[in-house]
C-alpha cells in the first residue's frame, strides 16, 4: 500500500478504517437499545424520539456539525466540563468518531427497529416459559432472530461513517496526520484540483465498502442456512 500511496494517504486510509470501525462499534449498543425500546415498548413521545434519531439525516451535515461544535466546543455547552475533565474532543480523532456516530446512528436504529418488530413474540414467550430470563431471551431469541436487519443496518451505518464529510469537517477539522479521513482528503484534493490524487483514495473506500457488503452477505447467509 505505502508503495503506491504516499505515507500520508496510507495513514489516512488506516486512520479512517479504525475510526469508522470504532464509531460503528461504539454506536451499536445504544442504537440497538433505542431500536428495542421503539419496537417493544409503547410510550408517549415515541414519534418525537424517532424524529430526533432521524434528525442527522434530515439536517444538512453542516448544521449537525455546527450543533456538535456548539455542544463540544470550548465555548460550547459541554465544552467547559469536558475541558475540566481534561478531555478535548474538538479537532481530535474523538471528534471524528463522534461525528460519524451521530451521522450513522439513524441508519442502524431503523434497520434494527424493523427487524425487532418482525420477531415473533411467541418465540420470546416460549423462551421465558422455558426458564429464560430477559437477558437470555434477548441474546438467544431477539438478537439472533433479528440478525438480518441488524447486519443490514450495521452495513449502512459503517458505509455512512466512511463517507461522512460535512459534520466531521466542522467538529474535527481537516487536519492531515490527525483528523483527516478519506472523505476529507478526497474533498480537499478535489478542491485544489488534484483529482489525480482523489481517485485512488476513492477506489480504496469503494473496495472497503465491497468487503463490508460481502462480509455482511456471508454473515447473514451463514445464519440463513439454519433458518
Amino acid at each position: 500500500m505505502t508503495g503506491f500511496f504516499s505515507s500520508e494517504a496510507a495513514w489516512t486510509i488506516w486512520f479512517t478504517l479504525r475510526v469508522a470501525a470504532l464509531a460503528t462499534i461504539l454506536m451499536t449498543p445504544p442504537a440497538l437499545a433505542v431500536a428495542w425500546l421503539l419496537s417493544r415498548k409503547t410510550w408517549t413521545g415515541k414519534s418525537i424520539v424517532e424524529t430526533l434519531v432521524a434528525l442527522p439525516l434530515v439536517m444538512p451535515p453542516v448544521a449537525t456539525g455546527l450543533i456538535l461544535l456548539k455542544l463540544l466546543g470550548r465555548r460550547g455547552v459541554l465544552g467547559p466540563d469536558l475541558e475540566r475533565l481534561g478531555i478535548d474532543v474538538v479537532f481530535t480523532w474523538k471528534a471524528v468518531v463522534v461525528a460519524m456516530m451521530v451521522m450513522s446512528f439513524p441508519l442502524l436504529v431503523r434497520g434494527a427497529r424493523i427487524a425487532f418488530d418482525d420477531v415473533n413474540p411467541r418465540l420470546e414467550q416460549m423462551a421465558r416459559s422455558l426458564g429464560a430470563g430477559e437477558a437470555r431471551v434477548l441474546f438467544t431469541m431477539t438478537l439472533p432472530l433479528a440478525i438480518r436487519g441488524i447486519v443490514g443496518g450495521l452495513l449502512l451505518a459503517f458505509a455512512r461513517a466512511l463517507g461522512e464529510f460535512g459534520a466531521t469537517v466542522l467538529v474535527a477539522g481537516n487536519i492531515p496526520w490527525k483528523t483527516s479521513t478519506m472523505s476529507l482528503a478526497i474533498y480537499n484534493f478535489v478542491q485544489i484540483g488534484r483529482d489525480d490524487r482523489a481517485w485512488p483514495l476513492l477506489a480504496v473506500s469503494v473496495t472497503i465498502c465491497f468487503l463490508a457488503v460481502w462480509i455482511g452477505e456471508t454473515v447473514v447467509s451463514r445464519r440463513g442456512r439454519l433458518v
Partner: protein
Amino acid sequence: MLRIVHVELPLGEFPLFAHLDMESRVTAIVGPSGAGKTSLLETIAGFLTPRRGRIELDGEILLDAEAGRNVPPRARRVGYVPQDDTLFPHRTVRRNLTYASDAGRDSPAGEFDRVVAVLELEPLLERGISKLSGGERRRVAVGRALLSHPRLLLCDEPLAGLHPELKVRILSYLKRVREEFSIPMLYVAHDAAEVAMLADEVVALERGAVVGRGAAKSFAWSEGMNIRTARRPEPSAQP
C-alpha cells in the same frame, strides 16, 4: 394440584370462563374448535392474562387478578406443548431440546437420551427446524416441554398428526412420566381412544365455558364424538 378459580378472559365472541380444581393426575380437555382450550392452557402458562380470577399450583398462587399478583411465565415452571409447536427456527433440534437446561432447568440425568429415544429424534438432532416434517415438529415440541423439568405439563394436541403406532408408544411414555415423576398433566385431545388411554378425568369446554366433566372411562361422549359410532351421518352439510 391445580386450582383455577373464577378465571375470566375476554376472547373473540365470548369470554373464557373457567372454574376448576384438578386433583386428578391427567385431565383431558375436549371441546369443539374454538371452544377456548388453547386459551385456557395459555392462561395457565402465563401467555395470556385473564381479567379476573385466581390460579394456584400446589398451593402457590400463580395469578391473582384481584390482588394484582401475576407470576411471570419464567417462574411458573410449566411445560407447554403449544398447538403450533412454536419451535425456535434458528436453532437445531438438539438446541431446541436443551434450551431449558441451558437456562438452568436441568432434567434428571439420562432424561435427555430417554426422551430422544422415545420420540425417535436421534436422526434429527442436528437438523434445522425448517427441515422437519410436521410430525417431527410435534415430537420436538413434546420433547422440549418434557425436558424443561416442569411441575405441570400442558399439552395441546401433542400427538396430532402422528402415526398410530408412534402415538401409542408416546402415550405409554407420557403415562410413565406421569407415574414416575407424578407430573400432573392437562391434555387437549379430540380422540376418544387417546383420552381413554391416558386421562383420568375429562373436562368438556364449549364457547369458553365448562359444559361437562367426569372420569375418563365413564365420560358420556356425545353422539358422533366417537367417530366410530358415526359411520353414516345424515348429510347435515346443506346450509
